[in-house]
């Protein structure tokens, strides 16, 4: 059997209101299921944007000694000076092993317009820093508007609740935006991974688990026996996300 490198694109750690698994529990599950690396964001992003940015950096530094995890930071609007200017923000990301950004416009109460977040989004596009779309469950109209305004950015669609059963909304985005990547946690459509990969390219699909709500194993077997060839399975399992993160110029 050819060994596969799995890089989980959809994990959350850290406490927010209630206790959630941290780095140690995540790494234990990764070992149990054979997941090599993970892209992790903090459970508290929606409620504690700035402190969760600091906390996840500290968690990675303190507990992820083998450096298997890459963090995600949230952005806030440019004009309120809550986050540094883009150059400094990305410098701090690199220094703290943060490889991607996300945003929670509905919880953080701002508009998804160029005059609000254009500066940081344009800088992310220029540097090819991936933007996670994990706050748009069921918000298809807002998501479509957002992507129309920022077509040059690299996006990873990672949200949990609205993926399955949403091919009528997902497929137009894959057709239209070449830098729109689709992560498969809870995309349980029978042989659906293969269908998407054959239609849009295996390069556009990423393995993810939705840890800690999801277990990492079910999607691994689904991908392994998706019907795709070994090269495409390897891309989806981990190579694509690794390529995207390495391509970011932080």
């Amino acid at each position, binding site marked *: *059997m050819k*060994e*596969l490198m*799995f890089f989980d694109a959809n994990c959350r750690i850290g406490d927010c209101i209630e206790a959630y698994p941290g780095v140690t529990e995540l790494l234990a*599950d990764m*070992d*149990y*299921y*054979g997941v*090599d690396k993970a892209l992790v964001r903090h459970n508290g992003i929606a409620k504690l944007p700035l402190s969760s940015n600091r906390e996840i950096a500290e968690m990675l530094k303190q507990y992820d000694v083998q450096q298997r995890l890459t963090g995600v930071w949230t952005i806030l609007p440019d004009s309120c000076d809550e986050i540094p200017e883009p150059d400094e923000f990305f410098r701090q990301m690199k220094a703290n092993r943060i490889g991607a950004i996300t945003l929670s416009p509905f919880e953080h109460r701002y508009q998804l317009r160029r005059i609000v977040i254009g500066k940081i989004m344009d800088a992310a596009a220029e540097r090819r820093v991936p933007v996670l779309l994990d706050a748009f469950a069921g918000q298809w109209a807002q998501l479509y508007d957002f992507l129309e305004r920022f077509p040059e950015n690299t996006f990873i669609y990672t949200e949990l609740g609205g993926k*399955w*059963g949403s*091919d*009528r909304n997902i497929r137009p985005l894959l057709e239209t935006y070449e830098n729109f990547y689709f992560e498969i*946690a*809870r995309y*349980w*459509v*029978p*042989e*659906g991974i293969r*269908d998407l990969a054959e239609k849009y390219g295996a390069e556009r699909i990423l393995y993810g688990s*939705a*840890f*800690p*709500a*999801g*277990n*990492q*194993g*079910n*999607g*691994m*077997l*689904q991908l*392994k*026996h*998706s019907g795709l060839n070994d090269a495409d399975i390897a891309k989806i399992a981990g190579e694509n996300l690794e390529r995207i993160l390495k391509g970011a110029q932080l």
Partner: protein
Amino acid sequence: MSGCIWNEPGSLAEKFWREGKGDFPIYDMHGHMGAHYAIYFKRCEAPEMVAHVKRIGVKRLVFSHHEALWGSVRNAQVYEICKQYPNTLRMYAGIIPQRQDQMKEDIANFDRWAPYAVGLKLLPGYHSADVMDKRYEYALAFANERKLPVLVHTWGRDMAMLEAIQKYPDVRFFIGHCCYGAWDHAIRCIKESSGNAYLELTAIPGDRGIIEKLVAGVGSEKILFGTDMPWFDEYQAVGGVLAAKISDDDKLNILSRNPERILGKDF
């Protein structure tokens, strides 16, 4: 990946990872068929569904047709579909509480649909009812008399489900989706039954730690495997059972042995 469950020699997980199937039959006890108004399904008719489930070694898929539950297809037509796939398909007769005449006619015909019809399917939430609704009484009394399986869609804390389990002690109730989210209530439904209720896993195998909790609560002998096929991929769902931190014996009970204990090896 060395040292992970998929590489554990002799384990079920290792066999499925390597070969794509095990050396035992899988029984998928919660299926559907046909198009759905809100969702794009590429593989929702019998030929594609049977091809999909056979990839992983499903011996029987027991299903209720979507359109039999919405009223545009009759159960007699579903029986004709099953006859085309006698080695794979079995059916639950879909019960629509708003259509009493149709329900009584279908129940009168139930024996003619042997061996394909193995039980009834109730979809109370979608039919603006609960399982204790009087309009279900005729069907449940029939199932009770015949000791038939009745698969009931549940989601959340469903008190009527517990009442029905206790009111109809000879019905084999399959609690679809395990009262999703209300796990302690689902466990209570089993513990306060007279042994006539089972938890059915559709939509759960992707969740972290839930199968473990249910097995600890009721024992793997009371849990059935299902996928809502054509809703959910068989490899995803079986993968979730294999990925649960329970014994291989528990996994075999869920995937294979329990339906045979209830319905026999050749149902």
